[in-house]
């Protein structure tokens, strides 16, 4: 592990962490994966395949079937059949039992899932172990409990499921996003065709094994792997009753274009460019940690990442200096090492996108700070990066980078902070750090974003609704509010 980063402070003390690499021996990755339709993995003899890689080594992990339009049709038919034959007529209490079972199996096999998630996606094992897996299980638990209590969430309303739901999820939190999508859809009585992202299909396919193990009726969850064309076949399919998408604003807009003409129910959870506002009276030690977590969590592959730091001018120099010292201590490297803070960039194309945008920032006049850490030779890596001297008009201040790159701007008054914070077409999340309670509420009330973290950042919970304003999408996931998109609600006629 000598080619991985050694923190400068630890050098000062002359100590370093010994590698603590999680073993992959408990994994049982198959050579080839078929589509998961109607409770079974389909035969792969006539499949067209694509490879999924370990982004930290570029080594292929498995061959994955690319679902054609005909395959998607088969999955939708299986979901329809399961809806009509089993799921529609099952009591909420029975649906709940299945969701509870899935939650338990995820907990029981969480180590296996966490290692696989890290291997396939490149995120640090400490994050997949401590965040992705516990939250994924919690989402199934939370929604399991709703399945037989929905009428309490919608008093005086007649509610019914949509039927077959098409769901497309991104590569940044593969299993967690699958659970955010599947749990409420199933709790509300829908059946699902789920398309995982092409670079991270493995945990969804392992989840398919869990689905078999818990005896979920065949066809209630179908998993079709593939890239854009597979997703497009699902979006355009005439027998899908509702669509839910998490991913880029660019693709979200294409999906909305397709859905509006058919008046098809849709929820979108899209990109962000979250302002992270630090006032001069903030508790600085905590704020520094919050900013670090806000942008470098999951390599910055987070739609709600605190990617735009707005720091009050009076403390800016001091704050940025301390921030840089803290960044020097971040350990970039082997995602399976339990000491790793920043893992691998998810894919080559994402690495190129980050690089291109940062270069655009430098060309437009930004100053760049990167710690002098060495990066592994193979795999996709990007060091934690801070851009200062950024103007509001710069691309790096406006476009979502989706990588470990923090853009810094300053402000003098709360009004100016607010103006800059809201100067974006996005509106997913925002952060505020101050010790003044009334200022927190003043800012929180005025920032146009769906999730506001005050004196904390990047916290998630199944009971807490998540979703965006403006071009960050519509609809909520989690909490009581996350149920509504998966039900048709009508007024009970008097």
């Amino acid at each position, binding site marked *: 592990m000598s080619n991985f980063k050694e923190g400068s402070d630890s050098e000062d003390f002359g100590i370093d962490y010994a590698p603590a690499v999680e073993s992959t021996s408990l994994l049982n990755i198959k050579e080839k994966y078929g589509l998961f339709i109607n409770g079974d993995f389909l035969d792969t003899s006539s499949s067209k395949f694509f490879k999924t890689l370990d982004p930290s080594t570029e080594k292929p992990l498995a061959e994955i079937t690319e679902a054609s339009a005909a395959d998607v049709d088969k999955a939708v038919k299986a979901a329809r059949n399961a809806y009509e034959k089993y799921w529609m007529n099952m009591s909420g209490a029975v649906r709940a039992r299945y969701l509870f079972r899935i939650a338990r199996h995820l907990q029981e096999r969480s180590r296996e899932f966490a290692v696989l998630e890290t291997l396939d996606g490149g995120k640090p094992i400490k994050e997949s172990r401590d965040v992705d897996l516990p939250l994924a299980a919690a989402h199934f638990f939370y929604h399991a409990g709703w399945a037989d209590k929905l009428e309490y969430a919608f008093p005086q309303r007649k509610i019914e499921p949509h039927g077959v739901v098409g769901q497309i999820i991104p590569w940044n939190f593969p299993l967690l996003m699958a659970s955010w999508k599947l749990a409420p859809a199933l709790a509300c009585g829908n059946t699902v065709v789920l398309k995982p992202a092409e670079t991270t299909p493995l945990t969804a396919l392992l989840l398919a094994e869990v689905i078999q193990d818990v005896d979920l009726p065949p066809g209630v969850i179908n998993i079709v792997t593939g890239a854009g064309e597979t997703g497009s076949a699902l979006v355009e399919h005439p027998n899908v009753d509702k669509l839910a998408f998490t991913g880029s604003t660019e693709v979200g*807009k294409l999906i909305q274009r397709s859905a509006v003409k058919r008046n098809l129910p849709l929820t979108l959870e899209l990109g962000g460019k979250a302002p992270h506002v630090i006032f001069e009276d903030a508790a600085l030690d905590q704020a520094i940690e919050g900013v670090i977590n806000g942008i470098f969590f999951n390599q910055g592959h987070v739609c709600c990442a605190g990617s735009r730091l707005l720091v009050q001018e009076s403390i800016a120099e001091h704050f940025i200096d301390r921030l840089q010292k803290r960044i020097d201590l971040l350990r970039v490297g082997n995602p399976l090492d339990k000491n790793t803070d920043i893992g691998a960039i998810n894919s080559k194309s994402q690495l190129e996108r980050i690089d291109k945008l940062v270069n655009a920032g430098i060309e437009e006049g930004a100053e760049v700070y990167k710690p002098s850490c060495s990066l592994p030779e193979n795999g996709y890596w990007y060091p934690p990066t801070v851009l200062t001297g950024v103007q509001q008009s710069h691309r790096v201040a406006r476009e979502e980078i989706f990588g470990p790159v923090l853009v810094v701007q300053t402000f003098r008054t709360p009004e100016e902070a607010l103006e800059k914070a809201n100067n974006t077409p996005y509106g997913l999340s925002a952060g505020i750090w101050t010790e003044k309670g009334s200022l927190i509420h003043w800012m929180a009330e005025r920032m146009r974003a769906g*999730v*506001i973290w005050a004196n904390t950042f990047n916290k998630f*919970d199944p009971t*807490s*609704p998540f979703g965006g304003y403006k071009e960050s999408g519509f609809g909520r996931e989690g909490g009581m509010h996350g149920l509504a998109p998966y039900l048709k609600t009508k007024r009970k006629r008097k």
Partner: protein
Amino acid sequence: MTGNIPIAKTYKLFINGSFPRSESGRTFSVVDSQGELIANVSQASRKDLREAVRAARSAQNAWASRTAYNRGQILYRVAEMIESRKVEFSELLKSFGVNSRTATREVEESIQRWVWYAGWSDKYSQILGSVNPVSGPYFNFTVPEPTGVVGIIPPKEPSMLGLISRLVPVIVSGNTAVVVSEGHSSLTAVTIAEVLATSDVPPGVVNILTGDQADLLPWIVGHLDVNAVDISGINQDQDLTVLEEAASNVKRLISREIDEESLELITDFLEMKTVWHPIGR
């Protein structure tokens, strides 16, 4: 003696609290159920729409910043204003061929809409918001906030109840509105504008354009400073591909039964905001 020659009303647009003519200079004629000309009405252009959106955007923050109690009072005041003009409204509806009993009922129900939603102004947050029991030492709550600027394509019939049923649930929460009315229902719309102009609704909160809905639809659906459009009144035979432009800024498109009265109609034009704060010493 001039008593035999009534003074006819000029029907103009309602933008930012004033009644301008269309910048295009165009008008369209509206006839009564007997085919007699009632009025030449201003036909709003794309530029008028832009002005109306600008007015709605400028008014939005201040309207949303009013207390819920105050917005409720203002909405209730509108009901009072219509109450005193009941005869005028039912005469107008009758001129379109609505029978006397139906016209009276439509006016009564329209007034009741304002009263019903006025009462919601300081209650929907309590019904729709929540405190969320997250598994950690955090205070976490969710509150509804207005979506912003909302375009409304109201149904042509019933001309009064249809427009009011779409408009009031939009503005009660602090959204501002741009309404596009068409044909004879434009006369009702402009008469409602006169009520609003003499009530306490601040300028720009409601803007009413009269003209061709199908003509203006692509521009309102594609406008980057409009956050949501209620398309409940659009003609279902028309080419729906124009709705695609809603995606240019991920606009919320809402379509509902035309004359219902419900909390969902308020919810359609709200965004849920969730706030986290640590609990500690």
